[in-house]
């Protein structure tokens, strides 16, 4: 039989190998290779043979297909522990992954927004008592500001504590279940009372239907504004639809009014001195007229200052309640719809995909490192085996 590797062999090598194969097969061999043939036969004859007892016992084990060892034996125990550990590890990993997905979905919230309004609106208070304040607010437009209520935390913004005179106001729109308008209104009263605030105007229409509503014009100490807005945004039966925070810096107007008051008071003092020294009726009448004008300016300046101080020290809040408006904070808020279910399902799938991607980002490098470690260990084992053969 001619092998394809023969072309690479020295003819003598090839013939010698053929003689060895022929000898082992029991075929006649060229006398030139008698030595090799004899050597091959002697090597084959010197082959160690298994004892009968060993052969019998090994046959029995093979007949039993080398069944698993007895429980408690080292190898059997190790194999059992290995299989159990792999199974437990896999189950624990799957459970951890499912738990992680559930936690992410719950913490980040489902559909409905939970009462977090997406849009910012600036609304003028609807009560007559606040009309005057509206005028002041509209005139000082450059220093007013609005803030979005679409943030996870519901605290109102605070003006910087720099000693300047700032007027703060806020508007809060709440949604409530139709049957809870009265309850929400009472909650508003309770909050205002707890901060020593004032209800300038209130109007509550409770019909039990979706046309129920309520409206409040409130004033609270400016130092309690943040606390009040936080409390009003967390009412038990209501959810925030929108919130507007306004600030207006009136420090320059305060300073001007104060200067006008000081000037008018100084002028009055001067005029009083002049009046005391007047000698003629004509000069006395003229001085009295000027004195009256100065008094009027003093009254006006004092009124301006009092008004500014009142607005600075007491912030106005306008609260409206709409029955049946969308929201998800209260216990009776919202209902199960197919749209919401589909939205939630999509969210779960999105989160699950994100978790899988993150897990892959961790597991792929770990897997590569593990594979490299196994390959290295296998290479080391092979090398040590070959070294053992060299040392044998």
């Amino acid at each position, binding site marked *: 039989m001619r092998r394809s590797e023969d072309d690479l062999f020295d003819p003598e090598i090839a013939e010698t*190998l053929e003689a060895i194969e022929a000898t082992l097969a029991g075929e006649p061999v060229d006398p030139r290779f008698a030595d090799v043939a004899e050597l091959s036969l002697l*090597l084959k004859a010197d082959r*160690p043979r298994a004892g009968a007892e060993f052969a019998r016992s090994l046959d029995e084990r093979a007949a039993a297909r080398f069944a698993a060892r007895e429980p408690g034996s080292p190898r059997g125990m190790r194999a059992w522990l290995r299989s159990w550990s792999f199974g437990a590890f896999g189950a624990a990993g799957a459970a951890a992954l499912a738990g992680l997905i559930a936690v992410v979905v719950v913490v980040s919230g489902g559909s409905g927004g939970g009462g977090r309004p997406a849009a910012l609106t600036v609304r003028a208070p609807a009560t007559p008592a606040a009309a005057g304040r509206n005028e002041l607010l509209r005139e000082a437009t450059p220093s007013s500001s609005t803030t979005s209520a679409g943030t996870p935390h519901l605290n109102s913004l605070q003006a910087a504590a720099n000693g300047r005179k700032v007027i703060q106001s806020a508007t809060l729109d709440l949604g409530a279940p139709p049957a809870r308008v009265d309850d929400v209104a009472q909650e508003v009263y309770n909050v205002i009372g707890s901060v020593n605030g004032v209800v300038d105007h209130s109007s509550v229409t409770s019909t039990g239907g979706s046309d129920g509503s309520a409206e409040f014009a409130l004033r609270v100490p400016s130092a309690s504004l943040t606390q009040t807005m936080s409390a009003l945004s967390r009412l038990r039966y209501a959810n925030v639809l929108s919130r507007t925070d306004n600030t207006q810096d009136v420090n320059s107007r305060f300073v001007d009014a104060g200067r006008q008051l000081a000037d008018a008071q100084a002028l009055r003092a001067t005029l009083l001195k002049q009046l005391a020294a007047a000698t003629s009726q004509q000069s006395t009448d003229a001085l009295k007229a000027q004195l009256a004008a100065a008094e009027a300016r003093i009254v006006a300046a004092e009124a301006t200052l009092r008004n500014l101080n009142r607005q600075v020290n007491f912030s106005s809040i306008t609260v409206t309640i709409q029955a049946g408006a969308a929201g998800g904070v209260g216990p009776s808020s919202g209902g199960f719809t197919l749209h919401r279910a589909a939205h939630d399902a999509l969210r779960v799938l999105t989160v699950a995909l994100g978790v899988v991607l993150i897990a892959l980002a961790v597991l792929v490098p770990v897997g590569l490192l593990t594979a490299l470690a196994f390959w290295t260990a296998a290479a080391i084992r092979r090398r040590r085996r070959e070294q053992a053969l060299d040392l044998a």
Partner: protein
Amino acid sequence: MTPTLTRPPARPADEGWERLEALYRASRDDVFAYVATLLRDRAAAEDVTALAFERAFRRRRTFDRRRGVERAWLFGIARNAALDELRRRRRLATLLAEPGDAADGPRVGEDPAEITLRRTTVRAALDQLPARERELVALKFHGGLSNAELAIVLGVSESNVGTLLYRTMEKLRRACNATV
């Protein structure tokens, strides 16, 4: 003696098991002979032989159908088990002549003493070989592997196996002739 297996009754047919058992029947003595020559320790050879077949049965799913590769796969397992034993022992135990080794008697017309002398000479020359060459002889003449199977077990080309075998035989022949 061809090993016989008494299979437990009522075991469902399994083609893979049957092939593995056929391989066992055909290779049991060959594996033992190879391992015994390599380790030169009969007791260790029995343990390693049993371990090799146990591992083969456990790894039966890596069993290859092609006849030429089946034995190479089995001898690869046996080789690794034997080398692991060498690593653990790191010693040599002389394989003394035992009654069971004298299976082939002298030929007709030959002096039994001469046969014994020849075998002793060959055995001494074999013991003088480096372990790798001794392993090659064990795989070829005691394990009964073909050159192609040798190449698979040793991880070299078939032409390389032929060259190594030729050189080893030449070395043995010179050693035997020098002794005589």
